[in-house]
């Protein structure tokens, strides 16, 4: 069914989808003169896994930050199920069902795994100052604990429920973050590089979990810079480079796209880096280094000199 629908969508940037859940229009964001994001039109289809790929610095994470309210765009608007989301604060976006994870996992290390999960449950009476004092939140807490344990079992974290989240491995933290997002019953899950820094043995299991989100009826958008990883599971792939969407389409179709290969692999890709015995760059590599350094210096000259 999904395959059939996706075959009908034209593989071009900004293509219309039959049932978009998230629609973006002319969103831009600059940092000190550099356009980090500049997307004219982009739609995400409901119920699909959409992979958002592109080289480092393509603006994927910035786009995520903008869509989820963690950053403010210079221009642009976007709607979620027809409701405008622009200008909303991060927590308001999350409450409307658009939940994200982070590239560097934000498992709350000093809370137990179970508390991490229960924290995410929406609309808790005990979360309000006076509600907490009244002490009438016990039953709700019980229900949330039950739901949390179910999800932890599904993500094979139930044995760790009472450990501090700081004790988990990198892959387990990714799983915890995903499970935690599900506590909020989101409509759209946005995963920022869920596979980054994960033991390759765990990658397959993570991918299965991503698929299972879709099978539960959720829309999944995830950022990845390794194209091979997403080929199997994505229903649709959006390619970004230098802040723009340069291509979109089904993953098998994109591998042949010349623009994608160029942008993605970059002009430096096939260049072998050369160093002398002392580790100093030589030849082409030295020129490349000089170029990068002068860019750095120019950025310092231009920018507000000492801001990090």
């Amino acid at each position, binding site marked *: 069914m999904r395959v059939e629908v996706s075959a009908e969508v034209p593989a071009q940037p900004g293509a219309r989808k039959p049932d978009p859940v998230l629609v973006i229009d002319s969103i831009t964001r600059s940092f000190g003169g550099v356009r980090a994001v500049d997307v004219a039109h982009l739609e995400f289809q409901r119920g699909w896994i959409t992979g958002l790929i592109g080289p480092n610095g393509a603006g994927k994470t910035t786009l995520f930050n903008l869509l989820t309210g963690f950053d403010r765009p210079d221009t642009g608007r976007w709607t979620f199920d027809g409701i405008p989301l622009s200008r909303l604060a991060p927590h308001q976006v999350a409450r409307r069902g658009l939940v994200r994870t982070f590239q560097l996992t934000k498992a709350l290390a000093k809370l137990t795994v179970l508390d991490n999960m229960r924290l995410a449950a929406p609309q808790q009476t005990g979360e309000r100052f006076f509600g907490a004092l009244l002490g009438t939140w016990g039953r709700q807490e019980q229900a949330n604990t039950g739901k949390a344990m179910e999800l932890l079992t599904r993500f094979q974290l139930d044995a760790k429920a009472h450990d501090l989240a700081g004790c988990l491995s990198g892959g387990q933290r990714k799983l915890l973050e995903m499970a935690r997002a599900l506590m909020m019953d989101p409509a759209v899950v946005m995963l920022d590089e869920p596979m980054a820094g994960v033991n390759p043995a765990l990658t397959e299991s993570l991918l299965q979990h991503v698929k299972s989100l879709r099978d539960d009826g959720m829309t999944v958008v995830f950022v990845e810079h390794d194209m091979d990883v997403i080929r199997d599971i994505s229903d649709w792939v959006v390619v970004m480079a230098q802040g723009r969407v340069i291509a979109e389409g089904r993953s098998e179709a994109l591998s042949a796209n010349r623009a994608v290969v160029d942008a993605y692999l970059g002009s430096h890709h096939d260049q072998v880096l050369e160093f002398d015995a002392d580790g100093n760059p030589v030849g082409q590599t030295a020129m490349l280094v000089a170029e990068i350094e002068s860019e750095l210096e120019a950025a310092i000259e231009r920018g*507000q000199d*000492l801001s*990090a």
Partner: protein
Amino acid sequence: MRPVGPVRSPDGARPDNSGFTRPVAGLLRAVLGALIAIAALTGLAAPALATQQPPHGTSSQPAPPEQPGLPVSGTLRNVDGTLLSGVRVQALDASGQQVASTTSNTGGRWELTVPTPGQYTFRIDRQSLPPGVTVLQGEVVRDVAPGTLSLVVFRFGAQRAGLQTSASATALRVLVDGIRFGLVIGITGVGLSLIFGTTGLTNFAHGELVTIGAVLAWTLNVTFGLQLIWATLLAIVAGAALGAATDLAIWRPMRRRRAGLIAQLVISIGLALALRYLVLIYFGGRSESFADYTNQVERNYGFISITDKDLATIVISLAVLVGVALLLQRTRIGKAMRAVADNRDLAASSGINVERVVLFVWILAGALAALGGVLFGLSELGGTVQYEMGFNLLLLMFAGVILGGLGTAYGALLGCLVVGVLVQVSAQVIPVDLKYLGGLAVLIVILVIRPQGLLGSRARIG
């Protein structure tokens, strides 16, 4: 050397406490004494200086031995430096009875004799003043005792100078005062900002670097008799060494242990507290005066009257700040400092030795703080040094540095200048003991309106 001016902190400024309520009282007295002194000196030093009797000039004072009673004398000098003649000065005893009176001579000098030791009130007869001269303090109560030189200083109105000078002259004077103060804040604030930019540390102990610099210069100057310029130069070297020492002994190990910035911030507060009271133990709670440049009269440059030391403060500050700017802009180490502040990881990966750069930042900040301490004492505190001076300056430094944008060097400078001017302008309209309030209030206002500061970028505040 005695403190300048008629105002001195009360005796017992050192905490003296035992039991439970005593520590409170002791602390209170220490802080109270110090603050009275600082408020009075900062606010009133200029007129006080203007009317101060030169200590050496009094040695030639004729005190006729055949005359019974005790001589009391003084010189009447207006704020603009002119000597006031023909002004009647009266002495009243405890019951309010006039016991003596005299009139000042052409040199502004007056001298009278009271019959017995005891407490007297000395008063200027306002009727006898030349037109346009106003009195700030026309009544002085003084214990007259045998065997001591009794000098009475009256202060003439600085605030109500509008009678003699035009509004624009006042405005210009306030502006110059503000720029002078702002430059001093800036000299110390640049270091604070650079430390923040390169290491992320909000250094609450920066004020103590300022105090220690000033106290060292004072020690060399007063205790060892070194001329103040040489004393200051040595203090700067010591300040640089102290900056380096704190980095090597405390902050570098903390960074190596990956201590959190909040932990580091609390450590800097503990350090500040310990250092401040070590200075108190060594130096005492009083304001003490430098040996040089204490009694300066304003010179008139046509459009502005200014004392030599204030002028020197401005010139030195400007020269040093231009030097710092050139350092940041032109030299290898300066560029490296900016690169580290811009992006520590990127700088490290492009071959910059970050720890060396940070050490240099501390050396520079320590040296600047020491110089700033001397200039602060010399210009703003009426030539005196005081153990809490650094902490008082610290809050204004923060105000300036945040106003300009925390972590930026040029922003810090601009922000400090604005704060300096603001403090001096606000002193025109609000009570003198609330003078620093304007500078602190701007801190809160700027955080509401533009938290990244004047020159800061949006990304770093979040």
